[in-house]
């Protein structure tokens, strides 16, 4: 059992998210410790992806979305006036369900976040791109073909490229929305292995439909149902002896 961190990396207080008249997330309270992997599980439409997207304010792209409550990153409200959303997204990176590399070269994909942040020094870019690809465990596979189109990579490689791309801007938190759902078991294993490595440097929040995956990669697991956080706890606890009946029913497959 690890000691609880002095201050959570992310703290969510009384968070509610609505789409029009529909409530997607209801009165959520949750703390996420630094350098911890938190898995969000729950049936489709339970609000876990919506919650994930509010952590880097991606919900703002959906016009009907409305939000109450607070999300604190290092104690600071990310929705407060004066917080630059662009800056926030550099601190809180995101990897999506479908790998979505830009139709550019492998190098330019990874360099993208750095370039839009104003970094144009060639040597510096090369250094950071290599480091990110190393972190994403992709460097050895692509180091001789950095100029090739990212679309020439396999599905699993593309997803690791997207991870490298997110890591390049050196975020503090990495959000992953079902990062391995479209991958074969070997690529999935590589991504999961990678997450164990990344934990040393980043705080990771992952949404997954694959409960075994949640069990394998995460330290803490949060179970969402109908927009509510039903239970959060140590992953081993949730998967051997959950405290709430609904969680029990979900992890044992007794739904519907």
């Amino acid at each position, binding site marked *: 059992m690890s000691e609880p961190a002095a201050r959570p990396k992310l703290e969510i207080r009384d968070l509610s998210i609505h789409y029009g008249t529909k409530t997607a997330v209801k009165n959520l309270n949750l703390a996420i410790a630094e350098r911890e992997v938190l898995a969000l599980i729950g049936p489709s439409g339970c609000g876990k992806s919506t919650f994930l997207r509010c952590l880097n304010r991606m919900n703002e792209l959906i016009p009907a979305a409305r939000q109450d409550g607070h999300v604190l990153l290092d104690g600071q409200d990310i929705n407060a006036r004066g917080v630059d959303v662009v800056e926030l*997204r550099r601190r809180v990176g995101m990897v999506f369900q479908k790998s*979505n590399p830009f139709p550019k070269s492998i190098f330019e994909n990874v360099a993208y976040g750095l370039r*839009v942040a104003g970094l144009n020094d060639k040597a510096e870019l090369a250094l950071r791109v290599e480091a990110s690809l190393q972190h994403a465990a992709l460097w050895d596979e692509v180091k001789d073909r950095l100029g090739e189109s990212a679309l020439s990579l396999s599905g699993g490689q593309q997803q690791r490229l997207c991870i490298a791309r997110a890591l390049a801007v050196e975020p503090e938190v990495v959000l992953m929305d079902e990062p391995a759902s479209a991958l074969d078991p070997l690529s999935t294993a590589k991504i999961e292995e990678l997450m164990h490595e990344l934990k040393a440097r980043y705080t990771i929040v992952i949404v997954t439909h694959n409960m075994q995956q949640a069990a394998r990669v995460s330290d803490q697991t949060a179970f969402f149902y109908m927009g509510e956080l039903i239970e959060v706890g140590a992953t081993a606890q949730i998967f051997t002896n959950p405290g709430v009946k609904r969680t029990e029913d979900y992890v044992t497959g007794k739904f519907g």
Partner: protein
Amino acid sequence: MTVAARRSPGVRRATTGLFTGLTGLAVGLLVAILLLIVGDAVLGGWTRLSWKFLTSAPEDGMTAGGIFPAIWGTAVLTLLMTVAVMPVGVITAIYLSEYAPPGSRLAALVRTAVQNLAGVPSVVFGLFGLGFFVRFVGERMDRAMGDELKWGQPGLLWASLTLAVLTLPVVIVATEEALRTVAEDLRTASLALGATKSQTLARVVLPGALPGILTGAILAVSRGAGEVAPILLTGAAYYLPDLPKSLSSQFMHLGYHTYVMATQSPDVDATRPLLYATVLVLLALTFSLNLVAILIRSRSRRRVA
């Protein structure tokens, strides 16, 4: 399922056969008409087509000589039109598809206007060009610069701008379509990496939409190059052996020249082969522009796949 199951295989085969036959007939008709037009133009015009024909001016009341001034006029006109229509069209499309809030009244209004613009007969554009560009704008420019008649008469610039207005819907629709084909995923990915909206537009969306936008441009050009009615009143000349010297000069045009030769020739028999050859050149020009558009589109599709 049950309906299909109740039908006997024979009936089903007959129905399938009937539709295959009907659609085949329609396609056959289309191809036949196209072949007839092209074949007629090629057979009639082939013999008169020569380097000299393409590079010299008409002579003897269009019964001899070439069509170079018309080719040149068409080229310059189209170029100016493109320069005018592309920025306006692309920027309008970017506003409509990227910046206008969803459900915006203004965007809906602009879209409706664009659609209606596409449905207006081209001769009305000609009248508009004459009334607005030549009379309203041109005459005021002349008055401002002294009383010499220069801009207040039909000319190259006014004709190009009129054509630009005519082809604006093509460019806007094609660009909007091209912007839509850029996956939402890529925009989201860019924003999630800390790019601003305009960075995302410049670095991801526009590069992705470029082939589609170019296709739109070429379609606009091929449409504009063939139109006669709008330029009739705004700048095309009946007969003008000299090349246009300035933006206010009148010019010759392949389409108009075809019309003139077909209807105004003093010697119909002498003009006919020249007429055929001119039509052939015009067709070749339009087809090759379309071909370029198709090539660009298929190349960009292959790159995405």
